[in-house]
């Protein structure tokens, strides 16, 4: 029987998953799994890394997420097609935008049942684990009503009753109720392991993360911690043995996987359209503006620069990036009109088109810079043009201009995900182990000594050294 893990959380479910996406790809290869669906909590933060790691390993990485609903349930939603991805992105954006930046527990971003219905097209819903909608409804004795509602929301054929087995009595009692309801409503079963870490030993990391998440120590966490180390990635054989009494639940995982046709390389993204004079294409408009500007910029040196400009315009045309350059040009023009100092930097300085349009200040032709460092047909990557802006109100006025021109949902701010480094990790782990501040200081100072070296020094030997 071929098994596909359809419910897995990575470290991008911040402090609620203990393995990074690449670990899943490596483990899937070793365990003989052909595909995994990553369903991090309330976001696609880990999906690109996961998808490309799986692709590199020759496996399929499905996209999904666990969406929190205002009814308190966490709905694992899997993306079937591009419409589903767009719907899920819109749903998440809407819930995040109305939530405060650092929400207090119980006030996190959550979708209403009506929103789930509005954005349900192209999605497939599992009934979830102990925090899922079905488990919560079963507690209230409303399991049947819950499943009927899910079928109404997502459509028959898009709802699978999820079974998980972590050797737990309560969970098994819930499974039996779920199976009975699924059979009476003729809904398919699907087996997952609700994976939170790749290796069994990583349960310890998950427990530490749980403590950090709840701002407590291991000694105080009690039942917040996992009951055992069974939430690791399991092979098809192991899962088939666990669900020997429900073979269809294993078989259905492949069926679900076959329905998940969406890939992150198929986003269908289009740049916002630049407003053009009637009858002109974006490329024609860019060509005219570039040549016009280049004559002014290069003056007598235009002849020398012309072949390079033509070469760059040809590549931009082939890659269909004319709209992108026009948008950047538009931003620079706005800054110029408003007297805001704006300067392109980075690899964009290798482009004569950028120089001509006034985006960058360095002449790449005169300096002999290589355009392909910025944009190449072979690499198949999108270019990025970094523009330095002054901080404060002027920067804000540029941001507001972009929002006005391209729509509130057509532009976005981006952010970095900060990860633990050796010392911060050592300090945080020390905290949950209940170390005092002096020991924490010593431990974090030792971190570079015992982490990241080929021959590690046991902590026990390193720690007794008194200052």
């Amino acid at each position, binding site marked *: 029987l071929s098994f596909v893990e359809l419910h897995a959380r990575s470290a991008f479910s911040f402090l609620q998953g203990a393995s990074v996406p690449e670990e899943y790809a490596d483990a899937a290869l070793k365990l003989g799994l052909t595909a995994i669906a990553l369903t991090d909590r309330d976001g696609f933060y880990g999906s690109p890394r996961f998808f490309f790691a799986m692709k590199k390993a020759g496996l399929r990485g499905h996209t999904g997420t666990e969406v929190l609903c205002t009814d308190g349930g966490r709905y694992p939603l899997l993306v079937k097609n591009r419409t589903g991805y767009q719907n899920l992105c819109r749903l998440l954006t809407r819930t995040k935008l109305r939530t405060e930046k650092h929400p207090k527990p119980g006030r996190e971003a959550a979708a209403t049942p009506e929103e789930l219905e509005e954005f349900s097209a192209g999605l497939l819903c599992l009934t979830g684990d102990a925090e899922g909608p079905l488990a919560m409804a079963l507690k209230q004795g409303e399991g049947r009503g819950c499943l009927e509602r899910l079928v109404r929301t997502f459509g028959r054929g898009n709802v699978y009753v999820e079974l998980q087995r*972590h*050797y*737990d*009595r309560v969970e*098994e009692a819930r499974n039996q109720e779920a199976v009975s309801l699924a059979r009476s409503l003729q809904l398919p079963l699907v087996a997952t392991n609700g994976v939170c870490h790749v290796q069994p030993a990583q*349960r*310890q990391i998950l*427990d530490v993360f749980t403590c950090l998440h709840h701002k407590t120590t*291991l000694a105080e966490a*009690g*039942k917040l*911690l996992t*009951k*055992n*180390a*069974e939430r690791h990635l399991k092979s098809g054989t192991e899962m088939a043995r666990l669900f020997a009494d429900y073979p269809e639940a294993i078989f259905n995982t492949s069926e679900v996987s076959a329905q998940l046709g969406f890939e992150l390389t198929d986003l269908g993204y289009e740049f916002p359209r630049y407003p053009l004079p009637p009858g002109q294409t974006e490329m024609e408009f860019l060509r005219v503006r570039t040549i016009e500007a280049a004559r002014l910029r290069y003056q007598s040196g235009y002849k020398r620069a012309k072949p390079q400009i033509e070469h760059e315009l040809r590549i931009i045309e082939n890659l269909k990036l004319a709209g992108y350059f026009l948008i950047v040009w538009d931003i620079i023009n706005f800054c110029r009109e408003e007297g805001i100092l704006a300067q392109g930097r980075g690899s964009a300085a290798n482009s004569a088109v950028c120089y001509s349009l006034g985006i960058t200040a360095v002449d790449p032709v005169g300096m002999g810079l290589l355009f392909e460092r910025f944009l190449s047909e072979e690499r198949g990557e999108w270019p990025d043009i970094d523009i330095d802006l002054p901080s404060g109100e002027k920067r804000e006025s540029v941001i507001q201009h972009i929002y006005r021109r391209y729509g509130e949902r057509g532009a976005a701010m981006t952010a970095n995900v900060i990860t633990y480094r050796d010392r911060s990790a050592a300090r945080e782990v020390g905290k949950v*182990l209940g170390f005092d501040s002096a020991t924490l200081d010593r431990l974090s100072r030792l971190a570079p000594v015992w982490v990241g070296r080929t021959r590690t020094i046991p902590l026990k030997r390193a720690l007794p050294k008194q200052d």
Partner: protein
Amino acid sequence: MYACLHAEGNSAILVDCARHFSPYSEQTSSGTVLIDMRGSAELFGGPQDIASAMNNRAGIPVDVAIARDLDTAIFAARGFRGTTIIPPGQEGAVLAPLSLSLLPCSPEVASILNSWGIRTFGEFAALPAAGIAARLGKEGSHLHRLVRGEGNRQLRPFEDPTRFEETMELESPIELLESLSFLLGRLLHDLCNRLTASSLSADEIHLALTLENAPVHACTLRTALPMRDPMIFLKLLQLELSGRPPAAPIVKIHLELRAMPTRTEQHHLFLALSPEPAKLEVTLSKLTHLLGAENVGTPELLNTHRPDAFRVKRFSGLVTASKTKLPASPALVLRRYRPPRIAQVIQKSECPVHIRSLSLQGSVIRCAGPWRSSGDWWKTERWNRDEWDVALSDGALYRLYEELDTRRWFVEGVYD
């Protein structure tokens, strides 16, 4: 009306004196004590009488000032020798000759006033208030009000750290518990009378017995509820001392009660009455004496996945409404064996098929499991086990478990 006593280096005497006159007093600095004397005319007479009584009570030369507001009383007590009575409305006039050095102002303001040639309270008070506010700001305005006798300081009465303790040094050492009980009874009687006078109770007794040529014999007893019955305290001490008598004759007794507010309880209409605190304490004390403190109390489940984890906490005796919702249908109840019984188990395809232990033996008819739990991985006493629920051929349903690290099997209990 407030009084201020001032005598450098005699704080203890001043505090003692203040307590004699009013329960509301404040020590503002070393050597200065404020007393709230409002409404005390009936007791002590007019201001002059109060001042003389304070002088007499203190027994040392004390500067006394009595005024309508606290700040004026402080300045007068610190600035004038002997007794100063300031009639209401005369504050500014009385304070006028005082040196500005008494005023608690910042170095900047002091320097400005000095440069203006202002040396006394009166000179400062004569300056226009609006001009002071404009030139010296908020601080200047505040100081200006003070020198005019218009301060609005509030009294911050200190908590009376009264201790309920008694010490008795014995002329001849005593050896018998009966004699000791007699003396303890007397001390407890006095202490409980003091508690009653203060409307307080006690929830802790500290007894320290100084012994002849031996270390101090000390014990601390805590009661579940505050009380002030000397007979109960004596009974508790007797039980404690009979279980753990002093090792040598006693030469000194020190007894202290920890005072607590007396507890008033509103009984719930639908709850059973709590046992009478005094009787409960004596019963608990007797049980503790027989079984050991760790075996008497209320069991409390610990917040952990570790099976059968609980602690015995002190029995409070309070009956409260349970917040736990009872299940609609009765759950299966496990009767645990403590300690669990070692068993020998034969397995087939990982499932137990036959069990033998000291008290039971039989073939497994049906089984469910394994139910796996592990935890406390950061401690030395971690656990890692698989549980099985098995129906044996004897008709009963048991819970077995296997310690995965040692591969040992146990029967944990039987389901009722």
